[in-house]
């Protein structure tokens, strides 16, 4: 039941449609400019930012370097605190765990806080198939769910929609609601609808921003309060997260959360930082009777197995890489067809879904480096994109081919071109001869050069080779 990548139309077709959608372009351009400016304003001291990024990267690298031990410590602490810990290798296993808990409680109504991992496993579909209403309660997620869509940004799910579109959606889908594009009024309508849902829900489901091994604490941040509703009001709370989200010490969340909201939305801090360590105790008057944590692999161990690709797992899901990506800004999140869009999506999705279905994403980058420049935990995204491009072309059976789907982009034609290329470039005489013919035969250059000439003039070899020019100069 995992959320499948959309094969038809292809990534190329989807991105072409997106760049030709004027509304979408306007929504993303406006939002990206806004977010970039807000982030910049939050980090006025460049030196302090670099120090903080070093620390953030160290904290995440340290957690990954000790990941198996920290996961065991987290599990032991949470268990001692009364939280039930589950492990899932696949999306199906994760959904089965949630369903099992739901069945034990005869639950039919679930409210959800924002969780990208729940999107990743296709939880809403799995719940619907089992007759359980899984309702998104983050305003942006609620809007896209109402529209029958998925999020187009990991932090701002409804970023692709204008307020007029949302106003039309509410008027069409919510009984007794008439059209208004007043944002305060729209939020008030959402609040009223969702309050009743919180009060009536059997299960609250949430993600986790960081799981603290030292104390067995789930750390969640948000602005709206829906996350606190989901983790406090229903009698069962299920948190779901990737195995990489663990940190060693409680104080490690401080620098990470100094980076997170400022990098994500350019706000100094979120409204709510929620530290959950145990279910409701006998003398307490609210909070869930049961708290569960599901630790999901879904391909993360493949990234972990490679020292270079392991850096992918440092991610704290702020979305700054997409906010600053010239490709994402033009095609938006849906064109990627994956749960995680943008630069981080291009490097994490191959592990979740296999390289065969996702390698075009690694090529959808100019390698301008903006993503690595803003990444709060210093993930070398362009290096990893290049590595994935190489993986996609890797010859099967070689050591370079280490990932599920490695070599998927390799075709007989491209292989032949590279064989000829390496033959010419490794033999000096042949190289001189070929370049001589190319410069002399430049008039024969094809005017149709595949994707290159779709928007550019054809490439034509120079009339004189570099060695000819040098020889003239030295004369």
């Amino acid at each position, binding site marked *: 039941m995992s959320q499948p990548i959309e094969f038809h139309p292809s990534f190329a077709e989807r991105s072409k449609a997106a760049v030709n959608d004027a509304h979408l372009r306007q929504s993303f351009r*406006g*939002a990206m400019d806004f*977010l970039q400016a807000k982030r910049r304003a939050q980090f006025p001291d460049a030196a*302090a930012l670099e120090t903080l990024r070093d*620390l953030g990267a*160290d904290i995440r690298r*340290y957690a990954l*370097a000790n990941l*198996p031990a920290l*996961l*065991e410590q987290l599990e032991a602490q949470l268990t001692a605190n009364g939280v039930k810990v589950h*492990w899932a*290798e696949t999306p199906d296993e994760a959904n089965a765990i949630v369903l099992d808990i739901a069945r034990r409680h005869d639950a039919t109504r679930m409210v959800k806080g924002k969780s990208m991992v729940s999107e990743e496993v296709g939880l809403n579909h799995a719940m619907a198939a089992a007759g359980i209403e899984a309702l998104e*309660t*983050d*305003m*942006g997620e609620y*809007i896209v769910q109402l529209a029958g869509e998925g999020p187009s940004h990991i932090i*701002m799910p*409804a970023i692709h929609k204008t307020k007029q579109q949302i106003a039309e959606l509410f008027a069409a889908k919510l009984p007794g609601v008439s059209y208004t594009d007043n*944002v305060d009024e729209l*939020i008030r309508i*959402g*609040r009223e609808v*969702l309050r009743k849902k*919180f*009060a009536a829900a059997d299960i609250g489901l949430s993600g986790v921003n960081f799981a603290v091994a030292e*104390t067995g*604490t789930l750390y969640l941040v948000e*602005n*709206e309060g*829906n996350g*606190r*509703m989901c983790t*406090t*009001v229903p*009698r069962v709370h299920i948190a779901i997260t990737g*195995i990489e989200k663990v940190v060693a010490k*409680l104080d*490690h969340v*401080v*620098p990470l959360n100094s980076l997170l909201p400022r990098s994500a*939305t350019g706000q100094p*801090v979120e*409204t*709510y*930082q929620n*530290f959950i*360590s*145990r*279910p*409701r105790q006998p*003398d*307490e*008057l*609210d*909070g869930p009777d049961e708290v569960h944590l599901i630790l999901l692999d879904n391909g993360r*161990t493949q990234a*972990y*197995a490679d020292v270079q690709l392991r850096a992918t797992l440092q991610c704290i899901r702020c979305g700054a890489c997409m906010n600053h990506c010239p490709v994402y800004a033009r095609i938006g999140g849906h064109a990627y067809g994956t749960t995680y869009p943008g630069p981080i999506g291009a490097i994490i999705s191959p592990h979740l879904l296999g390289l065969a279905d996702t390698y075009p994403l690694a090529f959808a980058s100019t390698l301008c480096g903006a993503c690595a420049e803003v990444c709060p935990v210093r993930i070398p995204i362009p290096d990893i994109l290049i590595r994935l491009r190489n993986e996609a072309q890797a010859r099967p059976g070689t050591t370079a081919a280490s990932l599920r789907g490695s070599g998927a982009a390799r075709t007989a034609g491209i292989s032949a071109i590279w064989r000829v290329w390496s033959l010419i470039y490794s033999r000096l005489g042949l190289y001189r001869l070929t370049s001589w013919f190319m410069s002399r035969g430049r008039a024969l250059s094809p005017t149709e050069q595949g994707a290159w000439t779709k928007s550019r003039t054809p490439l034509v070899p120079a009339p004189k080779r570099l060695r000819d020019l040098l020889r003239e100069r030295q004369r």
Partner: protein
Amino acid sequence: MNARTNILARLRAAPAGVPVPAPDVAAWHAAAGDMDSATRIERFRANIAAAHAEVHDTDIDSWPALLCGIAAQKGVRKLLVGKDAPEAAALAARAGGDLQLVRYEKPASEWRSEFFDDIDAALTPARSALADTGSLILWPDARAPRLMSLVPPLHFVLLDAASIHTDLYAAMTAERWADAMPTNALVISGPSKTADIQQTLAYGAHGPREVIVLLIGGAQA
């Protein structure tokens, strides 16, 4: 348990990579420096106001009267207070007229519709606060349960100015959080908000629309 075994086995089979020393959060924090008490109060005030919360100066004797005045002005009729909470006792002596004190005595599940629909405001103490982000630290317990700071549209918070820390790291270490975390600890920076519709900020998304801090001992400092 199979998934657990498999995942841990795969992680343990991976190459070690470059060793990473334990991150030194304390050194980073020390380099940033601490604030003196007057600066902490001033920064807290400015930052939480920027996050759209109100701060009112008061003292240990006059806050109940101040609260009653604000409540009357805001049209608060039912104010939720903690069972056996000391601040509830102080307020009870003062409240009257249109302001009715409702005590949080039963589990939330037993009076959910009244709680969600009829309560106008709640009063809780803050354990401490943070200057650098303008945040309140709440440590919910039986006398100030978790939902008090979330469900009612208005949240009154009693804060002792002497308890304002420089930042979250200072609060965590001074209060020794890692030794004994409560069921739920909260760091709250203003009223509930969202910018999910066209990046337009709106308050009162799911939690309180207003947060009003009654700051005790902040004016003299």
